[in-house]
C-alpha cells in the first residue's frame, strides 16, 4: 500500500512538473506569476533527485554504507571528521553558492525569462548535479583527493599540470569579472560605497575581538559584526545626504577599481585572521540568511513576471552582451546550471567530512539542485522589473546613448517603454543619483530583491532593501576577491616551485609580496580593461568568465568519465559524456565566435580590426588614439586568452580520449585507484 501511495505521489509530482512547464512555455502576451517558475523547478528537481540522482548513486556508484569513508578511516578531528548529513549539506551548499548563480541569470534575462530558466532547471539536473556528485564520489573513494590529483592519477601528468594551469587562469578572469560587478554596483553611489568601506574596519574589529578579547566566539562575534554592518547601511543614507561627506564616497569606476586592487593586495598579504577570516564568516552567514529571506519573500509576495518569455534579443543583438541564445545563454548562466568551480569544492573539504557513502547523494547532487533554485530566484528577481527599467539599468552607455534621454529613447524604440523621469523617481526611491548604465547584474538584482522585500515590508524601506542587497552582493564578492588572490598566489607559487624550490615557499616574505602583486596585477589589469571599456566591460569579460568556468566543468567531466569507464567500461559512459559533449559544443562554439566572429560586437578580433580601421582612416579623433590603441590591444589579449583556454582544454580532452580508447579496446589496464574496502564501525548515534 505504501509503495502504491509513493507511486501515486511521484506521478502527481511529474504531472505538476509537466503542467507548470507547459504553462511557462505556452503562455504568451500576459504577465505570468513567479510561482509557476518555482513550482516547475521544485517538481523537476525533486524528480531528478529521487530518480536520476538515486539511479547514479545505486547503480553506477554502488554506494555502500558498510564501507568506511575517509572521514571515518582517517579521522583527525579537523579535516577528516564524520559529519551529520544535513549539516554537511548546508556546509557544502554555503561553499558552492557564490555570485555566479545570482548574476548569470540576471544577465541572461536579456533573452527573456524562459531560455535561461529552462537551462537552469535541466542543466542542473542532467549536468551540474551529475558533475558535482560524481567528483564528490570519486574524491570520497580516493581519500579526499583534489581534482588536480585525480586528473594526474586517472588521466596522466599532462592532464594534471594542465588542470592546475587552467584553474589559475580561470581564477584571474573570475576575480576580474566579480570585482567589475562590484565596481559597477558602487560607481557614483556614496551610500553603497560607505557601507562597503565600513565593512573593512568592522572585519578588522571582528578579527581583533576573536584573537584577543573573546577567542573562539565566532558566532557571537559574527552577530556583533552583522549588527554593525546593518548600522552602517542606515548610516550610509545619512552620509549620502551629507554635502560634506557624500563627495568622499562618490567614486568613479576607475577610483573604485584601484581601491579594490589595493585592497586585494593587502588582504592577500596580511595575516588571514585579521581581515579575511572575519569577513569570510560574516559573509557566509549573511549569504545564507539573504537567500532564505529571498526564498521566503518570493513565496509570500508571489510577484508577477514583467519580462516576456522571449525578448527580441534572441537574434543576438542584445545590449547586455552580444550573441544568440546558442551558445551565449548557456555560457552566461554558468554556475546556476553547471559550474566547474564546484568540482574544486567537491574534491576539497566535503569528501573528508562524509560520514556514510549514501550521504554523498543529498550532499553532492542535492546541493547543486539548491544552487539551481538560487539561480531561479535570481531570474525571478530580474524578471519582476519592468523590461524598460531592466534594460535601462543593464545597458552600457556605449550602446544606448550617453544621456538619460537618449538611453530612454533607444530602449523605448526596442519596444520596452521607459522614461528618464521614471528612472529618476526610481533612483530617488533607492537613494541613488542615477540607475542608468549600472551594468554587471548586481544593481538590477538588488532592485528586484528590493522590489520583493519592500512589497512585504512597506515601500518606505525600498532604499534600505536596495542597499542591503548591494551590501550582501559586494560583501561576499569581495570575500572571493581577497581569498581568491591569496589562493592564486599559492597556485602560482606551486607552479613555479617546480622550477626553483624556494619560489614554492608560501611563507617567504619576498615571495608573498612579489606573487601577491603578480596575481593582483593580472586580475587588476582585466578589471582596469573592463572599467575603461566603453561597452561596460561585462560585455566582454562575463562571456570570457562563462567560457572559462564551463571549460573547467569540461575538465571535471573528463576526469569523471575516465573514472566511470574504469569502473564499468562503456556501460554508464553516457552519464557524464553527454553533459561533457554538450559543454564542449557550447564552449567551443562560444569561444570560436568570441575570437573569430566577423561581427565586432561579438568577435574580439573583428572588434580590434574595426577600431584599427577607424584609427587608420581618421574616424577616431587623434586625442583618443592612445585610448583606442589600448582597446585594440585588450581585444586581442581577450582573443588570445580565449584561445589559450581552448588549447588547454583540448589538451586534456585528447589526453582523456587516449586513455578512454586504450581502456575500451583493452590496450590499457583499467585500474580503479580507490582506497581499499574497510568495514564501517561508525554508529548512527555518533552523528
Amino acid at each position, binding site marked *: 500500500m505504501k509503495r502504491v501511495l509513493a507511486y501515486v505521489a511521484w506521478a502527481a509530482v511529474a504531472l505538476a512538473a509537466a503542467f507548470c512547464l507547459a504553462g511557462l512555455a505556452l503562455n504568451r502576451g500576459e504577465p505570468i506569476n513567479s510561482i509557476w517558475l518555482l513550482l516547475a523547478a521544485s517538481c523537476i528537481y525533486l524528480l531528478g533527485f529521487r530518480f536520476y540522482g538515486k539511479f547514479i548513486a545505486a547503480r553506477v556508484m554502488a554506494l555502500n554504507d558498510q564501507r568506511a569513508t575517509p572521514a571515518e578511516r582517517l579521522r*583527525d*578531528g*579537523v*579535516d577528516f*571528521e564524520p*559529519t*551529520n548529513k*544535513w*549539516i554537511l549539506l*548546508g*556546509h557544502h551548499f*554555503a*561553499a*558552492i*553558492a*557564490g*555570485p*555566479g548563480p545570482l548574476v548569470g541569470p540576471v544577465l541572461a534575462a536579456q533573452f527573456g525569462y524562459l531560455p535561461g530558466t529552462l537551462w537552469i532547471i535541466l542543466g542542473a539536473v542532467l549536468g551540474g548535479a551529475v558533475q558535482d556528485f560524481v567528483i564528490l564520489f570519486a574524491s570520497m573513494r580516493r581519500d579526499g583527493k*583534489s581534482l588536480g590529483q585525480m586528473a594526474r592519477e586517472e588521466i596522466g601528468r599532462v592532464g594534471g599540470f594542465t588542470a592546475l594551469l587552467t*584553474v589559475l587562469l580561470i*581564477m584571474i578572469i*573570475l576575480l576580474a569579472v*566579480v570585482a567589475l560587478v562590484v565596481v559597477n554596483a558602487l560607481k557614483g553611489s556614496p551610500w553603497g560605497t560607505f557601507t562597503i568601506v565600513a565593512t573593512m574596519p568592522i572585519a578588522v574589529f571582528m578579527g581583533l575581538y*576573536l*584573537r*584577543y578579547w573573546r*577567542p*573562539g566566539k*565566532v*558566532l557571537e562575534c*559574527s552577530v556583533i559584526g552583522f549588527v554593525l554592518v546593518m548600522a552602517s547601511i542606515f548610516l550610509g543614507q545619512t552620509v549620502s545626504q551629507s554635502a560634506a561627506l557624500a563627495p568622499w564616497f562618490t567614486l568613479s569606476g576607475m577610483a573604485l577599481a584601484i581601491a579594490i586592487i589595493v585592497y586585494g593586495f593587502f588582504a592577500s598579504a596580511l595575516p*588571514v*585572521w585579521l581581515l*579575511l*577570516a572575519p569577513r*569570510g*564568516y560574516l559573509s*557566509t*552567514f549573511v549569504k*545564507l540568511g539573504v537567500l532564505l529571506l529571498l526564498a521566503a519573500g518570493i513565496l509570500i509576495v508571489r510577484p508577477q513576471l514583467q519580462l516576456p518569455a522571449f525578448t527580441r534579443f534572441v537574434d543576438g543583438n542584445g545590449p547586455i552582451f552580444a550573441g544568440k541564445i546558442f551558445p551565449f545563454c548557456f555560457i552566461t548562466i*554558468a*554556475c546556476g546550471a553547471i*559550474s566547474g*568551480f*564546484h568540482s*574544486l*569544492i567537491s574534491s*576539497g*573539504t566535503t569528501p573528508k567530512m562524509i560520514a556514510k557513502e549514501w550521504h554523498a547523494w543529498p550532499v553532492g547532487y542535492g546541493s547543486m539542485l539548491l544552487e539551481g533554485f538560487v539561480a531561479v530566484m535570481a531570474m525571478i528577481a530580474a524578471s519582476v522589473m519592468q523590461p524598460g527599467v531592466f534594460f535601462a539599468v543593464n545597458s552600457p552607455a556605449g550602446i544606448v546613448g550617453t544621456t538619460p534621454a537618449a538611453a530612454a529613447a533607444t530602449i523605448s524604440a526596442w519596444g520596452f517603454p521607459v522614461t528618464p523621469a521614471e528612472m529618476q523617481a526610481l533612483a530617488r526611491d533607492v537613494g541613488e543619483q542615477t540607475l542608468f548604465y549600472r551594468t554587471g547584474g548586481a544593481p538590477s538584482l538588488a532592485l528586484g530583491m528590493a522590489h520583493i522585500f519592500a512589497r512585504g515590508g512597506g515601500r518606505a524601506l525600498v532604499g534600505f532593501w536596495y542597499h542591503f542587497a548591494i551590501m550582501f552582493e559586494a560583501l561576499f564578492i569581495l*570575500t*572571493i576577491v581577497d*581569498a*581568491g588572490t*591569496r*589562493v592564486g598566489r*599559492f597556485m602560482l607559487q606551486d607552479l613555479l616551485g617546480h622550477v626553483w624550490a624556494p619560489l614554492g615557499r*608560501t611563507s617567504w616574505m619576498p615571495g608573498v609580496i612579489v606573487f601577491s602583486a603578480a596575481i593582483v596585477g593580472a586580475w587588476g589589469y582585466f578589471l582596469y580593461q573592463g572599467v575603461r571599456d566603453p561597452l561596460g566591460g561585462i560585455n566582454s569579460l562575463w562571456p570570457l*568568465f562563462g567560457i572559462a*568556468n564551463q571549460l573547467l566543468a569540461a575538465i571535471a567531466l573528463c576526469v569523471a568519465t575516465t573514472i566511470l569507464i574504469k569502473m564499468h567500461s562503456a556501460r554508464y559512459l553516457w552519464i557524464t559524456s553527454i553533459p561533457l559533449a554538450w559543454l564542449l559544443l557550447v564552449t567551443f562554439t562560444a569561444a570560436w565566435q568570441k575570437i573569430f566572429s566577423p561581427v565586432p560586437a561579438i568577435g574580439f578580433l573583428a572588434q580590434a580590426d574595426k577600431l584599427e580601421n577607424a584609427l587608420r582612416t581618421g574616424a577616431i579623433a587623434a586625442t583618443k588614439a592612445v585610448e583606442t590603441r589600448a582597446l585594440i590591444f585588450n581585444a586581442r589579449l581577450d582573443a588570445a586568452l580565449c584561445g589559450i583556454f581552448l588549447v588547454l582544454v583540448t589538451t586534456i580532452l585528447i589526453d582523456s580520449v587516449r586513455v578512454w580508447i586504450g581502456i575500451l579496446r583493452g590496450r590499457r589496464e583499467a585500474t580503479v585507484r580507490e582506497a581499499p574496502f574497510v568495514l564501517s564501525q561508525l554508529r548512527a548515534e555518533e552523528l
Partner: protein
Amino acid sequence: MTRLREIVRLLAGLLRELADESAYQRHLDRNGCQHSAGEWRRFSEARLSAKYSSPKCC
C-alpha cells in the same frame, strides 16, 4: 515538538560548523586540552591557513 527541536539542533550545528566552533571543540577533545586564548590561536591559524589555500566558489 521533537521534530522542531531536531531542526533547531541541526541549524545550530550548521552554524557552529560554519563558524569553526565545532571543529575547535573537536580539536580540544582530541588533544585533551582546555580552551584558552593561546589554544584558539594555534587551532585557528592551522585551520585558516588550510581553509584559505583552496579556491572559493564563484
